[in-house]
């Protein structure tokens, strides 16, 4: 009984303390709103949600925006499940005004009515990388302002492999030779894991002739035309199977998202398929590296990586939409912010002016952009959510030696069953 009483007292005490804090902040808000006639203390409040890394980069700029315009800007870090938390919070009316996230969220955010289209002037739009604008366009509307693009490329250890391979066969030959010479223990570090990784295998899938969704007349992805399970996809997976554990041994399920980069930086494999986020580790490990496009199969199609875009969105149920639009469409479009975000995490800026500015000091950037030039925009349609899991598992099964035709056909059926 005594313990319970103490517990109750503690809980109630905390609740009272919390209520005290709540009252404190709300009472301090009210006078500020009433004093709006004096410009210094005037202004509404803009709340931005971003993940940890971006929050740190955004803060100084958000504060500057606040100071310039006499408004209060709060950047809040949401370190986990930002998208889900944002959707839930906007439904409750307690969400932010602006959110920062990947462009493939757009389909889900739109179907939940969580974001509004952004209207950019033609000359603003033209300042961006075309692929980036295409990525944030959904149902013919622009839904976000992009600031960075990302795609995978082939990163190679130039000590082990001085020449960039032109085809995947060339890569396998070099890798095998290094393995025979005991200079490396793996041919290629392309992460798969037991459940596969659709994002990283995609260049090989496209080179083999596969596709995910066909495109409709207006250039959008069409969920009714599913490419997984079609003969082209089976052919692609047959080629992938040849690289798998029962074939060349270049693709392995034991190479997982966790160990792929570290295996490369510990010089156990000469080739790594990864994105700009792997560069920091490679630099830390003092690897002499170079970046080239992911090679395709000899005589196959072009290997096209997915291009993802990070963007700013205006929340549909934000409390200060006008200010959010002002921030997103007129402030985020400035190159200075893009450069600062690049410095926080080195992904190629989507704004051409910002890209040109940092290109000079960072040669890797241009190489990543080159590798992504022929890339395909990651589909943002809600149906894409149904692809990842079955596609990845089919990949893992094929790499492990399962029959490609049977596996891919049933993956296609599973995906089709999930698409409404």
């Amino acid at each position, binding site marked *: 009984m005594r313990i319970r009483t103490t517990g109750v007292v503690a809980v109630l005490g905390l609740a009272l303390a919390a209520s005290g804090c709540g009252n404190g902040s709300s009472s301090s808000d009210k006078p500020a709103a009433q004093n*709006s006639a004096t410009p210094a203390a005037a202004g509404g409040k803009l709340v931005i949600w971003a993940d940890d890394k971006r929050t740190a980069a955004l803060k100084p700029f958000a504060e500057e925006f606040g100071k310039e315009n*006499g408004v209060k800007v709060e950047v809040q870090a949401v370190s986990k499940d930002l998208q889900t938390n944002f*959707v839930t919070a906007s439904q409750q009316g307690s969400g932010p005004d602006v959110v920062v996230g990947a462009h493939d969220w757009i389909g889900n955010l739109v179907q939940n009515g969580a974001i509004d289209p952004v209207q950019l*002037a033609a000359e603003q739009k033209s300042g961006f990388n075309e692929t980036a604008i295409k990525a944030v366009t959904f149902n013919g509307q622009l839904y976000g302002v992009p600031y960075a693009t990302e795609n995978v490329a082939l990163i190679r250890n130039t000590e082990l492999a001085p020449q960039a391979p032109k085809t995947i066969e060339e890569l396998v030959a070099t890798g095998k030779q290094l393995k025979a010479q005991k200079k490396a223990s793996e041919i290629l570090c392309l992460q798969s894991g037991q459940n596969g990784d659709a994002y990283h295998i995609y260049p090989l899938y496209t080179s083999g002739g596969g596709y995910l969704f066909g495109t409709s007349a207006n250039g959008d992805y069409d969920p009714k035309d599913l490419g997984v399970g079609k003969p082209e996809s089976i052919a692609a997976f047959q080629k992938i199977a040849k690289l798998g554990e029962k074939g060349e041994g270049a693709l392995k399920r034991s*190479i997982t998202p966790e160990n792929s980069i570290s295996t490369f930086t510990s010089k156990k494999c000469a080739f790594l398929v990864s994105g700009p986020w792997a560069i920091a580790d490679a630099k830390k490990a003092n690897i002499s590296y170079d970046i080239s496009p992911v090679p395709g199969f000899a005589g196959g199609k072009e290997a096209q990586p997915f291009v993802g875009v990070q963007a700013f969105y205006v929340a549909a149920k934000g409390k200060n939409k006008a200010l959010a*639009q002002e921030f997103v469409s007129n402030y985020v479009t400035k190159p200075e912010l893009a450069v600062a975000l690049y410095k926080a995490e080195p992904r190629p800026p989507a704004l051409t002016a910002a890209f040109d500015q940092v290109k000079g000091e960072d040669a890797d950037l241009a190489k990543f952009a080159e590798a992504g030039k022929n890339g395909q925009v990651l589909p943002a349609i809600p149906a894409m959510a149904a692809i990842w899991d079955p596609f990845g598992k089919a990949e893992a099964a094929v790499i492990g030696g399962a029959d490609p035709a*049977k596996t891919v056909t049933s993956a296609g059926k599973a995906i089709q069953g999930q698409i409404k």
Partner: protein
Amino acid sequence: MSTSLSGPGSAQQTPGREPVRSGLPRKSRTARNHAPITATGLIVKVILLGLVAGIATWAAFPLIEAKEWLGLGVLAVTTAALLYLYLTRRHIPAKYLVPGTLFLVAFQVIPVLYTASTAFTNFGDGHRGTKDDAIVAIQTSSVKQVPGSTEYALSVATKGDPATGPLVFLLSDPKTKQVYAGDADGLRQLDAGQVTASSLTGRITAAEGYTVLNIGQASVRSKDVTSLIVPTEGGAIRSTGLSRAYEGKAARAYEAGCDCIRDGESGRTWAADEKTGSFVAADGERLTQGWKVNVGLKNFTRVLTDPNISGPFFGTLAWNFAFAIGSTGLTFLLGMAIALALHSPRMRGTNLYRVLLILPYAMPSFAMLLVWRDMFNTDFGLINNLFGLNVDWFGEAWSARIAVLLVQLWLGYPYMFLVATGALQAIPRELTEATSVDGATPWQSFKAVTLPLLLVAISPLLIASFAYNFNNVNAILFTTDGGPFPADNPRNGATDLLITYTYRLAFGAQGAEFGLAATVSIFIFAIVAIVSAISFSRTRKQEEVYA
């Protein structure tokens, strides 16, 4: 609270002492309920009731603001009842029961009822809000810039007080340098001489008869700014932010007459379907923005009849039982064996062993699960490297199952070791000594005396452990993630539990389907409840035998 409440209790048990403490002679049956009032008791009571009143007041404001009258009513009645209960001297049993009941209702009953009610809806991504929300979302997302229309530089202004006066958009065309004022009545041209514009941005900085708001001032009136739409011939001028405006047109609009959405450009209509909570065109095309509706038993029939869900159900259920029983049984056996070994009086340095043995229990299981997953890696994992094996642990169904159980064993045995140690110390040594005097072997004495007595104490914990492991999402999600998956079925893997399988079904498709997830969790709840009820009734019988 404890002081004032313990008064009547002790008075009833030891009536003889009561007059000494209260100083009042006992006269009647009612007088017995009059607890002595002590200073501490009074202070605690005042503070706690003050807290209750304070929390109620704090919670009332947001409820009033949100016009949640039902919630407010519940809050008022609960608070009033609490105050009444603890301010009178009557209703002694209720004084004990009410706080616990309140917490039970708040943290158990309401979530369960909420889950159950969600199971009858289509709540999920694309169906989260009301129909009105969906209509607003469809209309706003269809607003497009009129092709070839002007982009204006915008200044928000007012004729009255900056904080309350009616808003006007002062617009300037950057190309022709013409200036306009626009409000809900329409657009009218202003004389260029009346305004001063910034040469840099083209925005109007001052205009005769208007007070131009700076961004700070305008941002306070965000709602008024976004809702101000200036009608024009081709559409309407809307603000985008606080410094630009464009001429846009909503392509799609809701028509109450046909209860449908009509696209002004193509003439296509999508009729509201209240059964599925979405707007559907004649050819079956669905608008992505839907709303939440009651779907009756649809989720339940889907779980039972959809071959994708019910097909692998029994296989998964069987492994689920094997996993829960295996995790509980193996950890119990190992934990008890170690506890018995350390319980032996001949054992030295038991404290050191005990500390070492509970180490796995002291480490965060999240992290340990991930570490174990990497240790089972075929090429880079510690286990294969250490023993010179080449087992594809998570690649084959049975090795993956064994690996998962091994991890569970490592994570779980310290707990069983701890409780078994505690229970063993409660068994009097005289009993086992008596059996050895009677000539029983240690095994006989263990089987006949120690184990039954141990089980009486530990059975409820074993049932709890079973129920926990039955739904142990982390153990699977962080290690195999349900895999390995058969090549022809990416939905259901060899180590999938019902809960991880459900998770994939409900959240792996086109966005989250909370309705379906709630339905499956009701099924799982039923299974666990039945198993627990049977086990508890058996335990009770056992207790009767050995007690």
